[in-house]
């Protein structure tokens, strides 16, 4: 269950860094993670709408380059928007400034509106870039790349184990739900249903803990001492250098645009 499965899977996944035929597939996953991080830092510190608009266009270009299906990808981006939508809507009414219009007696300020647009552009540009550069990677590849980027081992293991076992848990949940259905359970708004779901979650938790102990036991039997050796052969190639150059140039362009306007 332990590292052998991971490394076998990992090596295949490393060669297979995303949707087939994408230009990004051949680029070192570490370069992609660093590029996305640099992009996020630059975009968050920009304030000019023109520059932010350009950043969003760059994110869309990256999405096209990664050959991601636009529908599901934009849907994921919209999910993130769902979390900030209330803040965005309320901003024009909470930031003081020149009154643009009034709604039900509440004045909306131009400054607040601009701030809301700015935040919406930033958030969407960063999330879309992350989805394009990092989200198009196999999760196992991401784990290996993070490990090579000196992310704490515990976090990398957490990610790799989550990837491995999330399906096992999902299947366990599905089996329990089927068994509940077989005994005539139909969720309603009553205490019986709430208590039942509470038991279900509690039981899943208890079993997950027990399973993790069994897995740990099995890993110990094969000599596990707290470190999983990750076999990998990531190499920084000329293609990665070109990718890094293009990214640096693009980010520099954004900064220059922001300074000039």
């Amino acid at each position, binding site marked *: 269950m332990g590292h052998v499965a991971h490394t076998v899977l990992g090596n295949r996944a490393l060669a297979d860094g995303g949707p087939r035929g994408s230009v990004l597939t051949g680029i070192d996953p570490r370069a992609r993670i660093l590029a996305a991080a640099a992009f996020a830092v630059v975009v968050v510190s920009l304030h000019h709408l023109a520059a932010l608009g350009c950043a969003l266009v760059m994110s869309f270009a990256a999405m096209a380059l990664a050959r991601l299906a636009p529908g599901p990808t934009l849907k994921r981006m919209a999910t993130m928007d769902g979390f900030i939508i209330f803040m965005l809507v309320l901003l024009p009414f909470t930031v003081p400034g020149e009154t643009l219009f009034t709604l039900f007696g509440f004045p909306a300020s131009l400054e607040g509106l601009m701030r809301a647009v700015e935040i919406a552009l930033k958030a969407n540009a960063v999330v879309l870039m992350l989805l394009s550069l990092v989200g198009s990677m196999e999760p196992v590849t991401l784990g290996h790349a993070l490990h090579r980027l000196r992310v704490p081992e515990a976090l990398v293991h957490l990610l790799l184990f989550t990837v491995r076992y999330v399906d096992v848990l999902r299947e366990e949940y599905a*089996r*329990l739900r*089927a*068994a*509940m*259905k*077989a*005994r*005539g*359970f*139909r969720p309603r708004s009553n205490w*019986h249903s709430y208590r*039942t779901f509470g*038991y*279900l979650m*509690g*039981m899943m938790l*208890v*079993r997950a803990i*027990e399973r993790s102990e069994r897995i740990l036991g099995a890993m110990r039997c094969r000599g596990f001492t707290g470190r999983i050796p990750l076999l990998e052969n990531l190499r920084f190639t000329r293609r990665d250098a070109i990718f890094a150059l293009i990214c640096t140039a693009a980010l520099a362009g954004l900064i220059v645009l922001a300074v000039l306007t």
Partner: protein
Amino acid sequence: MSPLIRLENIHFGYPGAPAILSGAGLELHAGERLCLKGPNGAGKSTLLRILVGLLRPQQGQVWAFGATRQAEVDFHEVRCRAGLVFQDPDDQLFCPTVREDVAFGPLNLGKSRQEAEVIVEQVLGELALSHLADRITHKLSGGEKRLVTLAAVLAMEPEVLLLDEPTNALDEKNEARLTEILLSLPLAMIVISHDPQFRACISTRALALQEGRLVEA
């Protein structure tokens, strides 16, 4: 007399896999203990899941308790009248204590907590499991788990019992006890089992699942 359950010409295949049931059919009459056998992966458990509507066949009819069953609503009634005991007791037991798990079915049938309590005492008493009532379900032994899942289903007072390899992982003593309990029940049942001795003990009729069809064994 019309049967309690009739499956007709059931065709089923899991997505991306060849069909495992192709024209399977069976009838279950009152008082019968029908045993099913067949190789691993032949589709025996699938057949029971189709019977209670956890899976829908691609073709064919499920007829149970006097009506053709098609929609989720129809199957809810089937599930309340035909108790399915799962192959793995851990798939079934999810409440913290035995008492709560056995009460789960009756509560779903609309019984009050007091009524459910009475049923729990009664069912556990009949199966001589009263001493387990307040035990934590996931700490029971394999044999205890199996008997508790049976109690949990019997608490719903089903008209038909559907058992999926009930003797799995049972020692001789528990298997003998289970056999004795099943023989004492007046219910019609469909039992999947790989164990020829167990089948010989309890069956009144046997079918074998071969190449997607049920044939007399």
